[in-house]
């Protein structure tokens, strides 16, 4: 009965209802697009850099991350990795041996980063095969795969020979001739200019670091919480010899950028919602004033104040949920569209972003938690706003109301 009455009351003052619905709709629409754009950007950044290269968490010898010295390498012991693999939320462990050195072809030399990897493990977080633009992944210990920036610098192609020179574990000399087995595009100019991949075994041989790795990259399940997984791993290790870092610690600039940007975004949302609160409150105020007389009559003839309050509450909720629903329905296709056909950032901005290590696009965030969160927020706003008529009804005196 209250529902029917609420429904008809909404239709009675179409203009006011429309204003309420529209203001909610516009707020939700704008908020969703703004947040979807921002969160999408962050997710893109994180997935790009973290999810497919750095990994969410890494285990190193203590101090490795600051120094990046192969001398901090740790032993890639089976029992040790098995123990970590057992941690809840951990989905994969990728051993890597990373070191720096010089490549040369004829007169040209270039400083690069050598990454000894296990392809089958690596494949769990990045599609190396898919990143190949020429040749194949390494088959023999004399093979290396180079970033396309290196290939163009040396003007080399598949099957050409490159010489490596550098220092191995504990100052051992490391040098060798390698055949270019393949060229990869890592979708990141910096990485393309720096990255050389070879099998872990080959790298261990080259650097005289048998059985050693510089990092164990941990991939986590999508829904596992980063900090929780990190803590669990830390518990299992001797933290005086190992360090367990999450991506926020490994790339503080990235995290800072996201945090700073996010504060700005939240502020915008806060302002938007403030405007909305006043918008809804204005119409609710008008409604309450206009209907004082009617409220008075209803209480006079025997409607309990609780029922009347519930009625007004239902009306507010219907209006705001309609606004939220329509806002989501309108915003979501745009979000989907911009997710699958993302914005391409222009010139300078694009360069800057690529230097950070991710492609200059912004695929919008489309996971359901975003519209859900905003629906919930609007719902609570409606809840708070309808406290006003609820309060007025509580205080109402029928004859006073009916005199107005």
């Amino acid at each position: 009965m209250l529902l029917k009455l609420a429904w008809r009351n909404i239709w009675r003052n179409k203009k006011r209802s429309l204003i309420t619905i529209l203001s909610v709709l516009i707020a939700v629409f704008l908020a969703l697009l703004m947040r979807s754009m921002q969160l999408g950007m962050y997710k893109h950044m994180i997935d790009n850099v973290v999810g497919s290269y750095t990994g969410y968490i890494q285990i190193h010898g203590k101090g490795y991350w600051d120094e990046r010295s192969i001398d901090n390498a740790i032993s890639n012991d089976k029992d040790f990795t098995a123990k970590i693999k057992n941690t809840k939320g951990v989905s994969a462990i990728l051993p890597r041996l990373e070191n720096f050195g010089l490549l040369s072809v004829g007169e040209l030399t270039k400083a690069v980063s050598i990454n000894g990897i296990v392809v089958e493990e690596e494949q769990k977080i990045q599609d190396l095969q898919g990143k190949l633009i020429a040749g194949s992944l390494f088959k023999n210990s004399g093979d290396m795969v180079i970033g396309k920036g290196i290939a163009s610098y040396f003007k080399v192609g598949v099957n050409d020979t490159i010489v490596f020179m550098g220092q191995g574990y504990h100052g051992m000399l490391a040098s060798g001739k390698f055949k270019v087995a393949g060229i990869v595009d890592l979708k990141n100019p910096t990485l393309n200019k720096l990255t050389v991949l070879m099998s872990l075994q080959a790298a261990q041989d080259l650097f005289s670091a048998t059985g050693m790795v510089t990092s164990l990259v941990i991939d986590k399940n999508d829904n596992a919480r980063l900090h929780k997984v990190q803590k669990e791993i830390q518990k299992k290790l001797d933290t005086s010899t190992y360090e367990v870092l999450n991506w926020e610690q490994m790339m503080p600039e990235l995290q800072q950028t996201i945090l700073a940007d996010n504060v700005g975004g939240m502020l915008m949302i806060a302002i938007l919602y403030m405007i909305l609160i006043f918008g809804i409150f204005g119409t609710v105020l008008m409604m309450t004033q206009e209907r004082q007389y009617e409220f008075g009559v209803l209480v006079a003839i025997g409607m309990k104040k609780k029922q009347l309050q519930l009625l007004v509450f239902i009306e507010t909720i219907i209006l705001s949920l309609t606004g939220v629903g329509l806002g989501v329905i309108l915003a979501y296709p745009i979000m989907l569209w911009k997710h699958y056909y993302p914005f391409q950032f222009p010139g300078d901005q694009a360069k800057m972003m690529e230097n950070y290590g991710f492609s200059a696009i912004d695929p919008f965030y489309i996971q359901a938690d975003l519209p859900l969160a905003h629906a919930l927020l609007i719902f609570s706003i409606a809840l708070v706003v309808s406290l006003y008529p609820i309060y007025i009804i509580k205080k109402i005196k029928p004859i006073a109301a009916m005199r107005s």
Partner: protein
Amino acid sequence: MMKVIQTQELYKIYNQGQENEVRAVNKVSLEISKGEFTAIVGPSGSGKTTLLNIIGGLDAPTSGKVIIDQTPIEELKENDLINFRLHSIGFVFQSYNLIPVLNARENVGFIMLLQGMAEDEINKRVTDLLKSVGLENQMEKRPTQMSGGQQQRVAVARALASKPKFILADEPTANLDSKSTGDLLDIMEHLNKTEGTTFVFSTHDQRVIDRAHRIITLEDGKIIDDVKVN
């Protein structure tokens, strides 16, 4: 005869103790029995509305008692008082005050819904009530689609819906033309005769006064005359 309404030394004093003190109701003691058809009359400002509001539990007296069918209503808490009005008193207002978004049927049924009556019982009773006020052909109309006289008849049906102990009507005919006034009084009188419904109404209108069975005259908040006519 059973007393439905009883007031004892009722006062309603506005701005008490000040220069502009008004004794809107000034020591009113009266008794109204079941089945009476009573008009409260008197010049403008004599306290008719104030008295009816107090009897109806819409306004609190400055002092004195109102006893409705053995219940002293000043002892009721707000919620209980609302509930008491719902079950014991039928209201008819000068400006009809139907719920604008509900049609005639729903307006009458609304009270019974509030009382928690079952749906099919309500439907049956609504039809009977609207028939008894001569609106069997207007049941689906909303207030805005009806004349003032028709709306006021719906209001009477609504007031009857809760099976109240009596019906209070403050100037029910003030907004009606003489034909509608006559029709409404016919209906009220008929209900009074056949169902024994107790009516207490205030009025200025001599034609309405002439139809009353008992006339209580107020002046400056005091009862100056109380006569029964047959």
